[in-house]
């Protein structure tokens, strides 16, 4: 009997509401702190109040005797566990041994020194307060430039210069470019330390099943499989005896792309006590002890011709590493170097990085991870050059853009940009904002002394991390698709999303490929006992790499479905469409359900075909993807107070093909919020003694609803050839595009006053001082000495 199949509606590209939301909007999702187990104990960690000190003595006896306390462990007990791993390798990198509990010396405020385990969190906290520590406080240094200056207190006594590494990279002939330049502009540009502040702090539940020799670790992480490998190593446990589960994860932004002391510590405690144990980070601990982002001091020099052609870029990055290397700490500034030319056709670059130890919590990947710093730098420098040459910032960008026909484009930093047409989003954004009219308005306002700015950034970024040789721990991603005997489909992805919506977008991909109803598809992730090994969600990679792995797994499965369907139909000419295999000659057909049932029942099998319908694909990308876009900010400055009002925010992003515009918009908005946070409000401030002054939400300014402008978001679409989905990644784009547009806008507003650069965050007081004429221009002379 012939079946008429209506062409199924394609879901990719549709503005579908998310399938993960029902549990989130009803409060029934399970985050780590929602996990309860019989007999579960609760851990509170005792931390150093000093940035640099030695423990002269520690008395835990009162805490240990406190009613309800199961155990107290100190650094002496855990010396053999660990160390906390550094996953990046650079030539000559100095890696301090990172104990999970400091046995003797502490290096930053918040450094863990003991753990108290008790029947509940109230008791554990009471007992923790009973631990008495006699400290020998030492000199600390919290500023990276001061740290590498002569006479600074050594963070680690074995390396008195506080330099963890230096890194040099060069492309083309920089000296020639600078020697032949018509103009050279220089600027010191900082990208301040930021606190990622995922709304869910970190947390771990560890459960040791001694009889099974099985450790179950529930952790709020972006990388369950890597965590499993690394924590197993830290604990000396066979990897297959450790199961890592990421339940719902309440945001990461890079801060959970890591393995911290606490994961191994909770594993250690659970194994010692034979009982499940839970640790939930307080917000103060989160600010003090979870990685920070950025922390750059950059010295830029750009060489150019009179007509605005950029001929060379020199960059010195002084990276504030903090006291230790967390998983990727030293690698982050190297990403800045890779992206230092931005979208511009510059053949000559020279970059140096000095990685500086400070008595602060380590820096590591935070939304954008190295690329926001690079984009901020080059986009500021282009504006500074334009100002120097009295050129329009649009004109200078169009002049220097890599052209459409230049792709694939090999950059001076060794990358190959996949594809692009950089003028497209810029022109679209200019049209949206009404650029010419705004410039006319600005000219009128300037006559009246009013300060209005138009700031442009045209950004590029590296996404879809990435080819394995260029990505620590591997850059591939995995997917398994299994179809049950009843025809229902389960997708298991090795990336572990935490808010990005892959339970929806991956189901969209599978529904379209298999031609079935999306409600017949379940997407699972984040449990190493269920899901095949995977890498994780970070670096705007989940859809571009994980989605592509899924795409190829689906191709394998479709081939088998078709083969099996044809076999059942005894057809040598069959088509799979709409979840049905149809014989093109007879019109007879078999549904996916019928085929699935038959593959498992296995009464008859096609030659050389195994029973069952399951396919796994590990996909290794051949290149990164390179999304780009243009952001424009129109701002008005209150001369009297220095207050900044954002009048318009335009974001035109090209992230390739869009699977779900609703989700992509959400990513852009969230990214912009974090970019504006950096540009205007956020800064992790340490005082001279290494105390974190912004140690609570009372002092660290986070963007709130009433502080955010309306974001006018649009797209251009240039699919990447790197993967068959044509998707590039969008999780970090908003952040990367935002901060330079915002700063360029305010600098543009203040340019009639001679202002050329403003470091972030652009607080009203900073702006007011500039308006007052107090020069906050950075000491250009010092750059010459450094470069």
């Amino acid at each position, binding site marked *: 009997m012939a079946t008429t199949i209506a062409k199924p509606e394609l879901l990719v590209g549709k503005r579908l509401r998310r399938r993960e939301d029902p549990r989130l909007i009803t409060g029934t999702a399970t985050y780590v702190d929602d996990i309860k187990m019989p007999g579960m104990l609760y851990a509170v960690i005792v931390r150093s109040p000093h940035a640099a000190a030695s423990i002269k003595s520690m008395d835990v006896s009162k805490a240990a005797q406190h009613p309800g306390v199961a155990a107290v462990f100190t650094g002496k007990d855990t010396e053999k566990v660990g160390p906390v791993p550094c996953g990046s390798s650079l030539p000559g990198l100095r890696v301090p041994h990172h104990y999970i509990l400091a046995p003797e010396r502490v290096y930053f405020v918040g450094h863990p020194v003991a753990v108290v385990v008790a029947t509940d969190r109230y008791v554990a*906290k009471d007992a923790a307060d009973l631990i008495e520590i006699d400290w020998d406080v030492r000199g600390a240094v919290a500023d990276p430039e001061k740290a590498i200056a002569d006479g600074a207190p050594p963070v680690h006594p074995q390396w008195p210069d506080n330099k963890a590494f230096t890194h040099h990279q060069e492309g083309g002939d920089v000296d020639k470019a600078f020697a032949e330049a018509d103009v050279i502009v220089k600027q010191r540009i900082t990208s301040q330390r930021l606190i990622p502040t995922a709304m869910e702090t970190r947390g771990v539940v560890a459960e040791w099943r001694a009889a099974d020799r099985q450790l179950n670790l529930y952790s709020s992480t972006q990388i369950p499989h890597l965590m499993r490998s690394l924590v197993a190593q830290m604990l000396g446990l066979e990897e297959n005896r450790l199961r890592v589960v990421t339940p719902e994860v309440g945001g990461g932004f890079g801060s959970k792309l890591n393995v911290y002391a606490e994961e191994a510590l909770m594993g250690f405690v659970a194994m010692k006590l034979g009982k499940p144990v839970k640790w939930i980070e307080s917000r103060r601990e989160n600010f003090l002890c979870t990685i920070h982002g950025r922390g750059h001091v950059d010295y830029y020099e750009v060489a150019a011709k009179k007509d605005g052609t950029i001929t060379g870029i020199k960059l010195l990055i002084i990276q504030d590493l903090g006291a230790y290397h967390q998983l990727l700490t030293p690698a982050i500034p190297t990403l800045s170097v890779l992206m230092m030319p931005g979208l511009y056709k510059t053949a000559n670059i020279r970059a140096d990085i000095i990685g500086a130890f400070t008595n602060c919590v380590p820096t590591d990947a935070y939304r954008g991870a190295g690329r926001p710093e690079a984009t901020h730098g080059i986009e500021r420098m282009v504006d500074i050059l334009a100002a120097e040459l009295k050129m329009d910032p649009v004109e200078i960008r169009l002049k220097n853009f890599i052209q459409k026909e230049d792709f694939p484009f090999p950059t001076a930093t060794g990358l190959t940009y996949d594809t692009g047409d950089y003028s497209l989003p810029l022109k679209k954004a200019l049209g949206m904002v009404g650029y010419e009219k705004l410039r006319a308005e600005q000219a009128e306002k300037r006559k009246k002394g009013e300060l209005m700015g138009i700031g442009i950034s045209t950004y590029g970024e590296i996404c879809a991390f990435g080819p394995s040789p260029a990505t620590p721990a591997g850059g591939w991603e995995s997917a398994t698709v299994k179809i049950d005997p009843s025809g229902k489909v389960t997708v298991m992805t090795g990336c572990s999303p935490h808010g990005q919506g892959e339970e929806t977008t991956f189901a969209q991909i599978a529904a379209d490929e298999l031609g079935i109803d999306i409600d017949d598809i379940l997407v699972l992730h984040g449990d190493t006992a269920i899901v095949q090994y995977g890498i994780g969600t970070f670096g705007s990679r989940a859809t571009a790499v994980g989605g592509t792995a899924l795409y190829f797994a689906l191709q394998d499965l479709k081939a088998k479905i078709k083969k099996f369907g044809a076999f059942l139909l005894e057809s040598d000419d069959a088509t799979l469409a709409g979840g049905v295999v149809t014989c093109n000659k007879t019109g007879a057909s078999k549904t996916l359900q019928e085929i699935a049932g038959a593959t498992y029942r296995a009464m008859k099998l096609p030659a050389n075909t195994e029973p069952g319908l399951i396919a796994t694909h590990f996909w290794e990308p051949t290149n990164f993807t390179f999304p780009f876009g243009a952001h424009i900010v129109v701002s008005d400055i209150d001369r009297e*107070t220095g207050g900044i009002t954002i009048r318009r925010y335009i974001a035109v992003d090209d992230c390739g093909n869009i699977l779900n515009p609703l989700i992509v918009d959400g990513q852009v908005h969230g990214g912009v919020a974090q970019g504006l946070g950096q540009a205007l409000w956020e800064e992790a401030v340490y005082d001279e003694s290494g105390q974190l002054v912004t140690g609570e939400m009372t002092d660290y300014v986070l963007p*709130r609803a009433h502080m955010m402008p309306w974001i006018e978001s649009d797209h251009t679409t240039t699919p990447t050839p790197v993967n068959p989905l044509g998707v590039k990644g969008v999780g970090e784009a908003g952040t990367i595009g935002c901060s330079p547009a915002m700063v360029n806008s305010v600098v543009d507003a203040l340019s009639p006053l001679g202002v050329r650069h403003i470091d972030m965050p652009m607080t009203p*007081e900073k702006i007011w001082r500039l308006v007052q004429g107090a020069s906050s221009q950075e000491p250009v002379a010092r750059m010459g000495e450094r470069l």
Partner: protein
Amino acid sequence: MIPQTFEYTAPKTLEEALQIIAGGGKPLSGGMSLIPMMKLRLAAPDHLVDLGRLKDLHYIREEGGALHIGATTTHQDVASSALVRGKCPLLAQTAGGVGDPQVRNRGTIGGSVAHADPSADYPAAMQALEAKFVLKGAKSERTVAAADFFLDTFLTALEPGEIVREVIVPVEDGSTGTHYEKVVQKASGFAVVGIAVRISRKAGKIVWARVGVTGLANHAYRATAVEKGLAGTSGGATEVQNAAAVVADGIEANSDLHASAEYRKHLAVVHTIRALLAALARTA
């Protein structure tokens, strides 16, 4: 996140509450300042006396040409009260900008005043309104003017055993315009600088002006020099600017991460001008 242990009593009557407070109990009203401090273990009272259940402390009424507001009246109740909005708009406006909606639902006028945070909003309005506070102890009751109440950072004229029982603010007549101008500390919601202004203008002349300032000094104060500078003038832009210029004179201004002393003083001048102009625009 976890407070230390304490004893808790929710007395049925004010008398009972005052007895316990006299014995060293710490009054708990909305708890919006006290509870976070207890959670961070920066405060650890032995005995909390919950005033929140005392119905006879929760009221807003007009009596003898003034508004009487019970100590446990929440910011939300003050901000949304038709009576306060109509008769003492400065207080309603100030209350509506304290903290955030959830904080305003729990935080109380008596608690805020008694806490005397140098960056809190209410004290500016209290100074400008020349509010009076009824302070009650187990065996005493007295009324203290705002000018004599705020003494220093977190320090007031409250004696041990006393609570703020009632806040008394004037009913404005038709000649008065008011405004509260606040520079928000964006992380905490407190005031970097807050300027509360009342101006009475009749027949084009300013009869009197009252200016309360918070955030700038160790406690909220009345900028009497500004007030004097305005009295008798017509309230023109230049007159306002000249008068406002002295708002921070002689003040040792606070300085912190969010604003230096110099900038705070400057903001005080700018926002005094703005508050005055806004208030003047509201005078008849």
